């Protein structure tokens, strides 16, 4: 999926992609924050576009 879209699978790009998958299913207005932890020392939060 990422290779095909030309995106690099950074935590930032992944959390945004997961956001888009979830928003399509449950509605963007119901999503407030998404936090993706890559490992116990690194996480990225995304709040939507």
């Amino acid at each position, binding site marked *: 999926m990422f290779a095909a879209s030309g*995106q*690099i*699978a*950074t*935590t*930032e*790009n992944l*959390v*945004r992609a997961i956001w888009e998958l979830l928003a399509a299913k449950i509605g963007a207005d119901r999503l407030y*924050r998404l936090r993706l932890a890559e490992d*116990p*020392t*690194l*996480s*990225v*939060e*995304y*709040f*939507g*576009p």
Partner: protein
Amino acid sequence: VTAFALTRRYHFSAGHQLASPALDDVENARVYGQCYRPHGHNYFVEVTVSGALDPATGFSADLGELDGVVQRVLLDRVDHYDLSSAVPELDGVVTTGENLARTFWDWLAPALPAGSLRRVAVVETAKNTFEYFGDHPPGRPWETR
């Protein structure tokens, strides 16, 4: 404006003792309880920075730069030291979690890209975490900046 908030977790070990120079022995023992005795913690420090996504790299922050800054201005100063006696930059600071979080913020903010620091959290024990947000209340990165 789309923004990401990246949080990195660091660890250091240090000793300290909570005592106010304004109080006598009895009062310090009453206010600080068992923390008036010299003791130590395995601290964790969470540093959160916000930034826009660089479409070329997919990064919102330079992780190598962040690690380097935290190592230099924070961890190198405190790791395996007695915070109450062996860290000149903490002279006069009662090293409560609140004071440490604010002091660490003051060390980190000028060393990081301008305006990027969002939050410093000092995890003193499994039960106690102290968060500091600078002049900005907690919230979405772009709403409070």
